[in-house]
């Protein structure tokens, strides 16, 4: 073991260099503007930048809706797979792996085509109103649909790992024999033990939605990532500043929540 140490430090140092230098250089880039000297304008102007708040808000709303939809769809299904419907497992397995095969851009292309059916074929039917509603620019629900699909593989794996660690049937039977009703058994006995997996799923989904660009851009909406690209043309420093901040803030957030999740896990074990 001792002999491996120099190698380990070399690897860690190289990785640190590769991953930290772009972040550091980006900060330098935003602060040290050629011709203006050192200035913090890029950061002070973020809040007042046109469209920053609205696009960030839109992304956060989309993230909240996506997380809610993913959990509401996946958790009952995954628990049911362990309790009453193990035969459906291969089906769900395939359904949740398929989005890995279809790149986001292909999904966006397909969705764009479907959305065009509205005006072309359905303009006389009530469905048309639905098509219009889900494309409302202030809250494009169609993006939530796409993001849920994109999050399925991650969510499936995270929840499956969480469920594998606990014996759901025994847990439910134990709760039932203590007098809990079915819903009580699920909410009071199963979900608390899934807390780590639920947190994990939520954060992966959050990161995915906040950073998502492809589908939103191709369908013509402007959440956070698309706004950064749009603004980069005129304000390079500002866009880099926002990029770096968003990376660091997400990381810090996840680290804090991972620490929180880890502690709660050990606490519940003890």
């Amino acid at each position, binding site marked *: *073991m001792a002999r491996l140490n120099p190698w*380990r430090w070399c*690897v*860690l140092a190289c*990785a640190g260099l*590769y*991953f930290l230098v*772009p972040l550091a*250089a*980006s900060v*330098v*880039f935003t602060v040290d503007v050629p011709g203006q000297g050192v200035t913090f304008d890029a950061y002070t102007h973020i809040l007042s930048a046109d469209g920053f708040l609205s696009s960030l808000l839109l992304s956060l709303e989309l993230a909240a809706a996506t997380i809610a939809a993913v959990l*509401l*769809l996946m958790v*009952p*299904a995954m628990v*049911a797979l362990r309790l*009453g*419907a193990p035969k459906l497992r291969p089906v*769900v397995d395939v*359904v949740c*792996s*398929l989005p*890995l*095969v279809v*790149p*986001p851009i*292909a999904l966006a*292309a*397909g969705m*764009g*085509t*479907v959305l065009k059916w509205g005006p072309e074929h359905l303009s006389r039917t009530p469905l048309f109103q639905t098509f219009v509603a889900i494309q409302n620019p202030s809250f494009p629900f169609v993006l939530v*649909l*796409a993001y849920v*699909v994109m999050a399925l593989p*991650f969510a499936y794996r995270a929840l499956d790992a969480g469920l594998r660690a606990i014996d759901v*049937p025994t847990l439910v*039977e134990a709760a039932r*024999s203590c007098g809990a009703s079915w819903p009580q058994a699920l909410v009071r006995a199963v979900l608390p033990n899934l807390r780590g997996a639920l947190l994990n799923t939520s954060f992966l989904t959050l*990161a*995915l939605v906040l*950073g*998502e*660009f*492809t589908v939103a*851009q191709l369908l013509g909406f402007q959440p956070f*990532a698309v706004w*950064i*690209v749009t603004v980069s043309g005129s304000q390079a420093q500002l866009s*880099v500043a926002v*990029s770096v901040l*968003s990376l660091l803030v*997400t*990381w810090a957030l*996840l*680290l804090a929540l*991972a*620490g929180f999740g*880890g502690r709660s896990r050990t606490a519940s074990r003890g």
Partner: protein
Amino acid sequence: MTATLPKAGAVPVASMKRRRRAPGWLAVLPLLVFTALAFGLPALAMFNGAFTVKGQTTGATSYSLSNLTTSLHGAYLTALLGSVKLSAVSAAIAAVLGLSLAQAVVTSRFRALREAVLTASGVLANFGGVPLAFAFVATLGNSGVLTRHLGLAKHGWDLYSFWGLITVYLYFLIPLMVLTITPALEGLRSHWREAARNNGATALQYWRHVALPVLAPSLLGGLVLLFGSAFAAYATAAAMVGSSVPLVTLQIADAISGNVLVGQENVALALSLDMVLVAGLVMAMYLPLQRRSARWLA
């Protein structure tokens, strides 16, 4: 399961059985309906569109292979091959580097380091895209900090080239590899190393004859995942405006938005289908590998 239920009269048992059966697939149903609508419908539309041509004068539609043929010729083919090449090379490099980094982190005694690296990997692997591209433009782009201060342009450095793009892609591929391979590395039992040593294997022989073969399914699986991820990447390349590397994702976006030629939407769908086929082929290799490694490292 019914056997463990408290004994009850014949009628309640029957009704209980029915009550328990029903929620089983009812709980799975919303998920299936949702995927059918949000995923199946666009996928169908893509298939349908890829094989549909609109008559230029009549506006009538007919089925043909001409979109697919177009998508496999000229600039489109170059872009498809370019994507495959870029993805394969960057995935291979990221797999090797990611394995080394994961091994260094897993064997480390500092839990805080592990936690920080794994969380950072989660962020970079999933968040990536746009912020990442801008960070690299600011660092190594034409007016980037390092480019200016180190005079990299004089040495022939170009961020918008093939290798430049690989440099950027590694930034989210290496973390993805770390995330994928870490569970497998943690599954390597210390007993295997010791048993190998005990049977006269040197450290090198242990890696050659035990560790790598045991890790092989996970490694290949990781490689496939990285390839798929690099292949599907669009945001990074799109945000680095001015890249000279032909990529299929950029071609699809151009065809949809009619940037180059008008009326190419269905070629975009055909290109998407090409992508799905490539990714599907690669995924088909991944799933059996994953099953095997799960059995070994359980």
